């Protein structure tokens, strides 16, 4: 393999109904190159390693600094953001394919809208009474703020769902991201007012009881969110809520 070039294999699929295929590319090596730069090079010269003209690869990306979550894909078998996948740290040839747990749109683009729907299920917002000037929010000590901040950095990228064995066509498991968000809102002084709604959402079919405790999620999260701790904490809230409900005879 020449040092001047990078070899890449990319899984292609023109639409949800077309068959998939792999294509190989030989691309110029640039300093500080990441997987996004490889895809940009293909756009400028869409020709395979075998010299056949092809279409540019479709992919999803936006911020390119690992805060938006858009460019998540499976690179050398590992789900991660393409922007922070630096070529110099990857074994070549580099294999790039779309995430497998979401409906495919085209090439490396998948439809993650279910994750946003899941945030509706858990009522993922603080129920403020209006956006007018009503003075400051509740005081929080720095320790509470720091713990909540760690959870609030979830960028809905889908890595945790991709690696979770319980996310599969036979299950409607809500997945780690939304459970951790429920914990975030339940910990907020105002969010606590409708904590029961979130807990009850996690008690429905596809809720927290579907977690198989594989613990892959916490290892895959690019933001190092303590997802298994969140699942544990929400599990406790669910148990407590179930017991209270049972004892109060509601």
């Amino acid at each position: 393999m020449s040092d001047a070039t990078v070899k890449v294999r990319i899984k292609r699929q023109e639409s949800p109904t077309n068959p998939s295929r792999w294509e190989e590319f030989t691309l110029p090596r640039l300093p500080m190159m990441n997987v996004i730069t490889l895809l940009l090079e293909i756009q400028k010269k869409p020709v395979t390693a075998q010299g056949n003209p092809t279409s540019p690869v479709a992919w999803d990306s936006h911020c390119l600094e690992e805060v938006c979550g858009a460019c998540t894909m499976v690179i050398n078998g590992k789900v991660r953001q393409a922007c922070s996948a630096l070529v110099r740290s990857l074994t070549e040839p580099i294999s790039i394919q779309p995430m497998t747990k979401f409906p495919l749109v085209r090439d490396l683009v998948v439809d993650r809208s279910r994750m946003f729907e899941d945030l509706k299920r858990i009522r993922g917002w603080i129920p403020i009474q209006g956006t007018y000037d009503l003075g400051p929010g509740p005081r929080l000590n720095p320790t509470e703020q720091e713990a909540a901040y760690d959870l609030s950095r979830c960028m809905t990228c889908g890595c945790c769902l991709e690696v979770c064995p319980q996310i599969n066509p036979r299950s409607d498991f809500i997945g780690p991201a939304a459970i951790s968000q429920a914990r975030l809102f339940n910990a907020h002084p105002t969010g606590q007012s409708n904590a029961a709604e979130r807990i009850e959402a996690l008690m429905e079919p596809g809720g927290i009881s579907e977690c198989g405790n594989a613990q892959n999620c916490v290892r895959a999260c690019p933001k190092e969110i303590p997802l298994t701790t969140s699942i544990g904490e929400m599990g406790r809230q669910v148990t407590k809520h179930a017991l209270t409900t049972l004892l109060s005879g509601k």
Partner: protein
Amino acid sequence: MAKPVFIVVGGGLAGLMATIRLAEAGFHVDLISFVPVKRSHSVCAQGGINGAVNVKGEGDSPWEHFDDSVYGGDFLANQPPVKRMCDSAPGIIYLLDRMGVMFNRTAEGLLDFRRFGGTKHHRTAFAGATTGQQMLYALDEQVRRHEVEGLVKKYEFWEFLSAVIDGKGICRGCVVLNQIDMTLHVMRADGVLLATGGPGVIFGRGTNSTTCTGTAASAVYQQGVAYANGEFIQVHPTAIPGTDKLRLMSESARGEGGRIWVPKDVKDKRAPKSIPSSERWYFLEDWYPAYGNLVPRDIASRAIYKVCRDMGMGIAGSDMVYLDLTHIPRADLDRKLGGILEIYEKFVGDDPRDEPMKIFPAYHYSMGGIWIDFDHMTNVPGLFAAGECDYQYHGANRLGANSLLSCVIGGQVGAATMIRFATGLGKRSDTVPAAVFAAERKRQEEIYTKIRAMEGKENPFVLGEELAETMRNNVSIVRENARIKQTDTKLLELMERYRKLGVTDRGQWMNQSVVYIKHLWNMLELARVIALGALARDESRGAHYKPAFPERDDAKWLKTTKAKWTAGGPAFTYEPVDISLLPPRVRKYDVDKKAAGPAPAATKAN
């Protein structure tokens, strides 16, 4: 009469804030966005949001914030809207706090504030170093709540193509493209708000996200909407070099004590930590003792440029200087700047807690944008703009941490104006004949039919790179008329070569090449507004710097540039700036504001 309905284009901070206000008032909103709104470019804002809450007992006030902002913008901003923004800022920060934004706290549990450029006060509320992301998430969550209640319908991976303007010149809706199945649609509304962000991709590699092409702003400019102060482009002093993007290294790094320096001896080959303090040149502290590393961005960028390009004093003669945080305790860095240090670590490989970072200026922000009145309506009734895509708040140079603020206030004021406008409309959009919509849709369809049939030899992405290169090289930190003229010649050449493009993607499904080609034309149109606006303005003001005209010239140029589209290129007119609250004075940062002295003799607006 039917209840008014609204369209908001863009799901960043401004668009989401407007959507919430409209839904809160009981109106239905169609929200259109290129990307799922939670991934909008606002996530990239790092350092914080300004508001004079005065938690440190420094005598800060909204008036002081207003004064810093107008002074920082070199007196080009209309003052009443800036005053309104600064007056509203503390309330906006409290609102975000109530929504659950995880702002950093003091030991007492109050909001913490840090310093930023162009001020002497701790005025910037922050959530680690991912404030934009945290604010966007809070607004996204509130919009989701209205979505569940049925008042908001999102169209994600959809694109605004053009406004539908009726025979009376009123905007009645828009034509949109579904970027997944590539179908065109028309949407009716009694008010359309563009909150579509800046045009950074025109300059290629910079701090902007991939969709920041300015395509919507350019599209309406080509339909007769005025574009104002296009030549005012902010180059951020501290970005990380890269091949796909120049990632931002937030001003908050300096707000928390970061220092910029180069070795005094350019041949010094030692590792930065082995260079003793006496052999380092802290040039910002040297040149601007009053503000030091916290001079506004235009000043810092020019200084770094001067050190590297004019004096050849960059690190080992390169285009880089050190941004040094290594003297600050690790725990403080993690708590206050964790997010950005992580970015540097991931993309460069060095830990900035141990090693000074290497940075250089990069394209960051457009102060210019769609012309709006003080209440956010464009010159086309029914069409509004807010956020980076408008021109209203930042004059010739934006102060750090004022952009998140201007997005929120823009969304709030814009939504209120939309409601006022729509409820006062004699005739609602549902009574406008279908033919008005069909005509605009047909015009857009014809454009795409032409693009799909392109069979020339030119590659659109290569053309885009040439556009970016010429703009970066010639219409950036230092501007010379001869080179701007060459740039315009190049832009005309690219417009000619655009006709010889070939589409390498014939797919009917999520065809990103076809989408890009439309953006490319819109970028070329807007690039001419930026370049020719810069050519005309023979003075130096804020981010617009011409060595041949080094002084601000209020007698001739204290005025807003307004570009109107014509087939032959932009036609410029100028209008006076509203300086009713604060008389212009000399802007300098080597001394304190009070010591900077009174205005020069000729400061009257014309």
